[in-house]
């Protein structure tokens, strides 16, 4: 490949979807309509836990305007004791999550769906469905779910020889933990608690599905992966994947929460039954009640260090809420929490706990913020006990190239230490603090991911470029792909158009998640560009009558490689495109591969807070995120990822939480009482992008989308401690809780 001149890589070009989005023209999934379209509505459980004795849909079916009513009978069943794995999901849980079988397991659990000529009729018909329940005792909190006589959600799940709500465990071990603690001069052990929080995407779930008379289904929906939508819908309806076309809409936020389906299979079955296109839009209340969130947790962290600040042993035990079905992100807590450090003796253990809450979905760096919250808080206490700067403590223990991580791998070139040093040297870290203000720091790690990706790069007849990839663009990936394509082909950015294909027009591409999209897309786009450049050279060779090897591609032109090659005026991309028909036909190439080599990302954050000592209100006054981003292909959008993560972290730390009432119902299903921060709650957010290229990637890309949510919980908690002199061991640090801590009772 050409030397990278970096004419476009690293430039803040205008995003291709920008104009449509700011003028309201962008097509989101609920903007889609079709002639003859009817509306679906989902009946949801009023109980947190109950046996379904019977469902009578007769009255609903008789209501004028109702076209079809479905229940779990209409959804493909997957026996509960046989795993059917699809990515990080298991279809036996997905099938029961989209439509309850035998039992409802949380308030809001779907158990029937109606299609009718209007939304109101569909809703009314749901009220007419008669369900007989045998209400069962329920467990919402982890402690209630794991106590000896807890109500059991799934009888077949066994733990230590008994039916249990502990659905799985995960463990990492390194060295000898007991020996490690015996060498420690200080040991701190603490327990922490966090609440379930929602991704808070502004666009709720919705879809339109049309199943034609020949059985072929077309799905328009908002998701983080059209291929995921196709696969899950295929599993749950029995329609072969080749007969399902899933078209990705623009997406109004996902943050991990749109990596599974809720509505698409139901709308597909309703459309199959009625022969009409069916649209379903979830309202905010149901979105909060029955989609997302990420786990609440409890954890215990124990860390030991020598007088000089060398960490000799670390131990973490995590219990994470999975919601009604197994699958909490224990991997993130168990695997990421100690990853920034070179620790000789370590042991982390996670429990996956089911309870009568809605099934959790991925949320930026799933599980990792929970893990980092405890570890980074305890490190803060150790630093204080050793009378050491908390960043110095992290510097002494920083993992480097060659360090073996607690979760297994040995690190290649990576930039954790650089983030710590940049934090130490940042003006923010030295700025004076006012009264009742405090400063906290914390670090974080996320694995990042590779996976399947496909691209097609075509040269248009007029010499422009269209690139198609298969991952929904959530954070500006189209703009970044355009930068890379322009760079590789040596052409102006304006000549490149980047589109997201649907499942029928581009090869399989794994979903947008794990901070994988630009890492993976850049790889397949790079390979496609290489193939296209080869074709362009071949065409020039043909025109000039010389060897392909005697031609080089530079600055968007084919040129003779040297004087020996002959004297020819360069041929531009446009000229070669114009002659394409005569020289062999259309120019274009695609590439698809399971990408590998995604290396982890590290960040260190600095946060200042001010506490109202009479009211317990915590306000964030200044925030700086420092991250090893590999290579910032489009710096604005990289910064956008850092900003977003830190805002979501501020919400998680201070004000967001799922609150269940005594009936086992979610009590805050709207944004009034589910308090995500608003703009005026936030300070200006500062970012520092450190670029230590990923050696395994052609442009040095590392995922950047998830690490930013890992450090904030502890950074904010550590800052509050500095401000008030007492520590909170649970989140959110809401005003009543903080006031109680200040008053010491």
């Amino acid at each position: 490949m050409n030397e990278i001149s970096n004419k476009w890589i690293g430039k803040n070009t205008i995003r291709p979807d920008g104009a449509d989005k700011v003028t309201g023209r962008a097509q989101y999934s609920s903007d889609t309509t079709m002639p003859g379209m009817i509306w679906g509505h989902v009946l949801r459980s009023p109980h947190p836990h109950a046996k379904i004795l019977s469902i009578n849909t007769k009255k609903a079916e008789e209501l004028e305007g109702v076209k079809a009513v479905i229940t779990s009978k209409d959804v493909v069943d997957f026996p509960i004791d046989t795993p059917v794995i699809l990515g990080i999901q298991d279809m036996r849980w997905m099938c029961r999550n989209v439509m309850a079988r035998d039992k409802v397991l949380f308030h809001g659990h779907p158990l029937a769906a109606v299609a009718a000529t209007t939304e109101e009729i569909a809703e009314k018909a749901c009220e007419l469905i008669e369900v007989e329940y045998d209400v069962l005792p329920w467990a919402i909190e982890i402690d209630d779910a794991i106590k000896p006589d807890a109500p059991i959600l799934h009888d077949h799940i066994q733990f230590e020889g008994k039916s249990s709500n502990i659905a799985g465990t995960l463990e990492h071990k390194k060295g000898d933990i007991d020996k490690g603690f015996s060498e420690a001069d200080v040991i701190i052990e603490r327990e922490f608690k966090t609440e379930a929080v929602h991704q808070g995407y502004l666009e709720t779930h919705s879809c339109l599905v049309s199943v034609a008379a020949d059985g072929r289904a077309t799905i328009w929906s908002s998701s983080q992966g059209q291929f995921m939508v196709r696969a899950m819908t295929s599993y749950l309806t029995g329609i072969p994947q080749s007969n399902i076309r899933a078209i990705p809409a623009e997406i109004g936020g996902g943050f991990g929460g749109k990596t599974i389906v809720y509505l698409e299979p139901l709308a597909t079955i309703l459309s199959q039954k009625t022969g009409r296109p069916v649209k379903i839009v979830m309202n905010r209340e149901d979105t909060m009640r029955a989609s997302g969130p990420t786990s609440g947790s409890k954890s215990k962290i124990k860390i030991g260090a020598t007088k000089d600040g060398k960490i000799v042993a670390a131990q973490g035990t995590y219990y994470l809420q999975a919601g009604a079905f197994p699958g909490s992100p224990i991997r993130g807590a168990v695997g990421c929490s100690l990853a920034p450090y070179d620790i000789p003796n370590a042991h982390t253990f996670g429990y996956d706990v089911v309870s009568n809450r809605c099934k959790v979905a991925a949320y930026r760096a799933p599980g990792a913020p929970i893990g980092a919250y405890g570890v980074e808080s305890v490190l803060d206490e150790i630093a204080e006990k050793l009378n050491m700067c908390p960043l110095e403590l992290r510097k002494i223990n920083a993992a480097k190239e060659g360090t073996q991580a607690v979760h297994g791998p040995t690190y290649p070139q990576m930039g954790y230490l650089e983030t710590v040093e940049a934090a130490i040297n940042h003006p923010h870290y030295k700025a004076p603090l006012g009264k009742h203000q405090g400063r906290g720091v914390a670090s974080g790690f996320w694995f990042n991911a590779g996976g399947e990706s496909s691209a097609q790069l075509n040269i248009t007849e007029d010499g422009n470029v269209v690139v198609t990839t298969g991952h929904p663009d959530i954070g500006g990936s189209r703009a970044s792909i355009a930068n890379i394509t322009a760079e590789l082909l040596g052409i102006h950015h304006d000549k490149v158009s980047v589109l997201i294909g649907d499942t029928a027009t581009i090869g399989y591409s794994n979903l947008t998640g794990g901070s994988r999209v630009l890492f993976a897309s850049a790889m397949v786009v790079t390979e496609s560009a290489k193939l296209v450049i080869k074709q362009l050279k071949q065409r020039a060779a043909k025109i000039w009558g010389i060897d392909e090897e005697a031609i080089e591609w530079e600055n968007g032109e084919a040129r003779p490689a040297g004087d020996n090659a002959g004297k020819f005026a360069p041929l531009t991309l446009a000229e070669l495109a114009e002659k394409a028909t005569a020289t062999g036909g259309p120019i274009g190439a695609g590439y698809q591969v399971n990408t590998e080599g995604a290396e982890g990302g590290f960040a260190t954050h600095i946060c200042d807070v001010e506490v109202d000592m009479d009211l317990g209100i915590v306000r964030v006054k200044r925030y700086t995120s420092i991250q090893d981003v590999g290579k910032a292909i489009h710096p604005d959008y990289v910064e956008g990822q850092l900003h977003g993560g830190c805002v979501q972290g501020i919400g998680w730390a201070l004000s967001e939480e799922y609150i269940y009432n005594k009936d086992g119902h979610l009590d805050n299903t709207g944004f009034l009482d589910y308090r995500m921060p608003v703009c005026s709650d936030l300070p200006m957010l500062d970012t520092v992008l450190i670029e230590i290229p990923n050696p395994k990637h052609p442009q040095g890309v590392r995922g950047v989308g998830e690490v930013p949510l890992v450090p904030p919980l502890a950074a904010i908690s550590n800052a509050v401690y500095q401000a008030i002199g007492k520590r909170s061991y649970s989140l959110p640090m809401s005003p009543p809780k903080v006031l109680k801590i200040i008053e010491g009772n």
Partner: protein
Amino acid sequence: MSDTQYLAAKTIDEAVNAHEKANGTARFLAGGTDLLVQIKSGIRKPNLVIDIKKIVELNSINEISDGEFEVGASVSGANLNRNLKFAKLWPGVLEAFRLIGSEQIQGRASLGGNLCNGSPAGDSVPALIAAGCKAVIAGPKGKKDVPIENFHLGPGKTVLENGEMLVSLKFPKREANSADAYLRMTPRTEMDIAVVGCGVNISLENNVCTHARVSLGAVAPTPLLIKEASDIMVGSKLDDDILNKVSKMCMDACNPINDKRGTIDYRTKVAGVLFKRATKLATDRIGGNK
């Protein structure tokens, strides 16, 4: 499928008659920022919605005599904010009103709607009570005035009977050296609901308090007037001792609930803190500091 009828009334009589005839199934519509949300979520299902914004009396701001204001029940926050004289005389009422919602909400929301919605946490209500404001009500039996502190009967319940409509809010004539202030505690800086709200209205003469009214919101089933506060404050210099006493009084008057928005203990403490801060703010305003 909605069977709701809509009527845009042009006169008070038309509105009152239509409401009376509907026999409890009608709702008045001012800005709709409470009502439409309630209809959409299924909490209210009125058969008739009577839009009152086209009635002149309800949508105007009158200065009856110098410093004496009557504000129509459906005047929006954005409109009241444009009246510079009102803003100068009643900064606390205006700041309470302006806390409601966002810029968009301010274009619609009214004092009348905030009051008639009956929420114990309505932000403008403690400020109106502290101001000594009266509700002017029109109904089948004619017009009457009710002090705001007597307007609420419980959460969602007001003195309004079938056919009765709030026409305006009558403010007492403003004396010199007076100011009011309203503060609320919310976890977020905006777009939130008061966990506690406190309105304070005072007059000073040579640093001695000559008039004082203190009101609390969100700490009891209805917004409260702390009557005894006036007795201690008037005649004093509002020194720390007095403020501590009244602060304690405010806390004693609280009868809040434990809910997702705040605990009894927390709300009670906050009431005492906000009283002191609001009094300081009002005092500073008289001194011309704010």
